[in-house]
């Protein structure tokens, strides 16, 4: 939930009990004031009755202007009724219930004891109380709602720099050139946030760049000592003074160093792809490229008795990086050759929308979702660096393509599908390029 809505909701939730209890309290207070007032009137009427009676002792009790609201009964001399005020209803002429206040009290007039009951209608006042309460509470709610709307509107404006900043952060890529472009705000808090974030991203970017340069420099720096070691081993290999078993040790060291060199070169390539050091802006006839690469691998497939079936649609043009595309194709084919069965098959097909490479092979010795991870490899396969498919994945994502892997256990077939999001053109026979989106 947005902070804005949350604020408004909190205000509402907090104000709701205030509104309700406040309304009730208001009603009760006004009601109490009115009842006090009515009781006061009743009391005054009682005094008035006594006064009139005593002023005009000759007149009969009935002529004292009594109406249905006054009831006078004689009582014994010892009887004493303290004044009691109660609320009650009486039936009106139309049969409706009308609120009344009743005062019942013993009254001594001219030495005689009476019990007097006085009734006072206060229906109107009651209704007024209700109306006042409703109006006040209503006004309160309307004001509250208006305040909420105003706060919402003002906040929207106030928070705009924040949302802009969020957008900028979302667009920001640490691996791409350019600073975090923070929006300008006059709000102190946002100014501080912008300042902090700018400093923070600058720091992280610098760290990233130096890390990046470090990986690259490390890869390069490692090559020279390797060259020295390998060169010396090469010289040792030519020595006539070494025993055959020593020579084999020299050779094994050479092999190990060569692996280290390959590993470092491959990591360097991965780093470079990660760092976007390859610009994808060439139009490449991938059909021709793939045909050439396939021909290169025929030697290995025939040596392993593999059946290599290819179906390459001609003249498919993609916007890609030529060197990376070659590595992509080569790594996928290499993978299909290396992890195949003796006498197995490879099915390769290229269409304007996708490349598919299917090979027979044992099922993966690790979970399929690790297939494209760095250094996930078949422990039985020593030559593999475990980086080939990681590179494939990086190249695919750099080119905005998509790769999918499936394994069909019953036929022992691994399928790799590379979907090209945008095929520039499929050249027609007269080599006229027709633009076409897939």
């Amino acid at each position, binding site marked *: 939930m947005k902070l804005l809505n949350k604020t408004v909701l909190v205000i509402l939730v907090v104000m709701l009990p205030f509104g309700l209890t406040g309304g009730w309290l208001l009603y009760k207070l006004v009601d109490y004031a009115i009842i006090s007032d009515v009781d006061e009137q009743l009391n005054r009427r009682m005094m008035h009755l006594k006064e009139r009676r005593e002023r005009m002792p000759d007149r009969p009790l009935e002529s004292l202007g009594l109406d249905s609201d006054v009831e006078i009964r004689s009582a014994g001399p010892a009887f004493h009724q303290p004044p009691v005020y109660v609320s009650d209803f009486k039936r009106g002429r139309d049969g409706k219930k009308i609120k009344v206040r009743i005062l019942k009290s013993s009254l001594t007039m001219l030495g005689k004891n009476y019990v007097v009951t006085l009734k006072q209608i206060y229906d109107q006042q009651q209704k007024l109380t209700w109306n006042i309460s409703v109006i006040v509470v209503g006004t309160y709610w309307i004001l509250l709602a208006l305040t909420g709307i105003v706060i919402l509107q003002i906040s929207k404006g106030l928070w705009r720099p924040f949302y802009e900043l969020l957008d900028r952060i979302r667009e920001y890529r640490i691996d791409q050139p350019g600073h975090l472009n923070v929006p300008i705000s006059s709000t102190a808090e946002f100014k501080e946030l912008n300042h902090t974030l700018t400093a923070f991203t600058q720091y992280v970017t610098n760290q990233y760049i130096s890390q990046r340069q470090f990986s690259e420099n490390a890869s390069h720096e490692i090559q020279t000592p390797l*060259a020295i070691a390998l*060169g010396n081993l090469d010289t040792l290999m030519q020595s006539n003074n070494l025993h055959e078993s020593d020579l084999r040790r020299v*050779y094994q060291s050479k092999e190990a160093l060569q692996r280290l060199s*390959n590993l470092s070169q491959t990591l360097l390539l991965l780093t470079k792809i990660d760092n976007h050091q390859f610009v994808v802006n060439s139009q490449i006839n991938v059909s021709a490229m793939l045909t050439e690469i396939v021909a290169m691998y025929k030697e290995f497939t025939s040596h392993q008795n593999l059946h290599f079936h290819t179906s390459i649609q001609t003249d498919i043009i993609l916007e890609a990086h030529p060197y990376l595309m070659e590595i992509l194709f080569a790594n996928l084919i*290499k993978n299909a050759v290396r992890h195949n069965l003796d006498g197995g098959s490879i099915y390769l097909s290229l269409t304007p929308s996708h490349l598919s490479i299917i090979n027979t092979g044992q099922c993966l010795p690790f979970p399929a979702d690790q297939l494209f991870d760095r250094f996930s490899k078949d422990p039985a396969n020593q030559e593999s660096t475990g980086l080939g498919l990681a590179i494939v994945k990086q190249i695919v994502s750099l080119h905005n393509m998509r790769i999918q892997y499936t394994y069909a256990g019953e036929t022992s077939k691994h399928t790799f599908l590379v979907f090209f999001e945008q095929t520039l053109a499929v050249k027609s026979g007269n080599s006229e390029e027709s633009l076409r989106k897939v």
Partner: protein
Amino acid sequence: MENQATQLLLIEDEKAFAVLLESYLQQHGNHVTTRYSLQGGIEQTLLKEFDCIIVDIGLPDGSGLELIRRVKSRRLTSSLIIISARNTLEDKIIGLDLGADDYLIKPFDLPELNARLKSVMRRRYAQQDAPLIFDKLVLYPATGQVKVDQRPLLLTQKEYELLFFFMTNPDQLLDKLTIAKQVWGYNMDLASNDILYTHMRNIRKKFVDAGCPEYIHTRYGLGYILTMA
């Protein structure tokens, strides 16, 4: 060229590597002058005209590419081989665009350097088409033909490449790794011992069939050597 030692200028700042290359190149009949800095290298080019300059790109006092620029601007005819630890396409393209004859990435096998140097030298003296001769074996790079005692020997493309590499590095033990790297490059990891063995067996069989002596000897578990012994 055959009789006279090739005059080489080696510019490499890593002393251990420079010493190694110097001794290897001298063993193979070249005369080597070694300098450890760009400035030292440039000074040498002013003193003497070399047949070939082997220059590292990453030198402490500047880029080896600068030396190539200077050499080319002075219209010196020395051939140029770049050796670099930087395996970047851009460096390679710039280097070759500037007029370098070859570009080797560290680490490289010494027989590979030897093969590249020989091939650069053959081009320099317009002898790239001159046949390579090893006793009765003659290889014609221009036509891709191989002859034994004037009788043609039919080789496949890969067999020809292999033999070419052996003939540029005679009497040297070429280990399997070096051969695989030379012939299969990026795919050397796919080239199992098996595949090299098959090729070598086929070449040797063709030698026998052509009545050619057993020039190629197997060093078990290590590699092969082209030798008369």
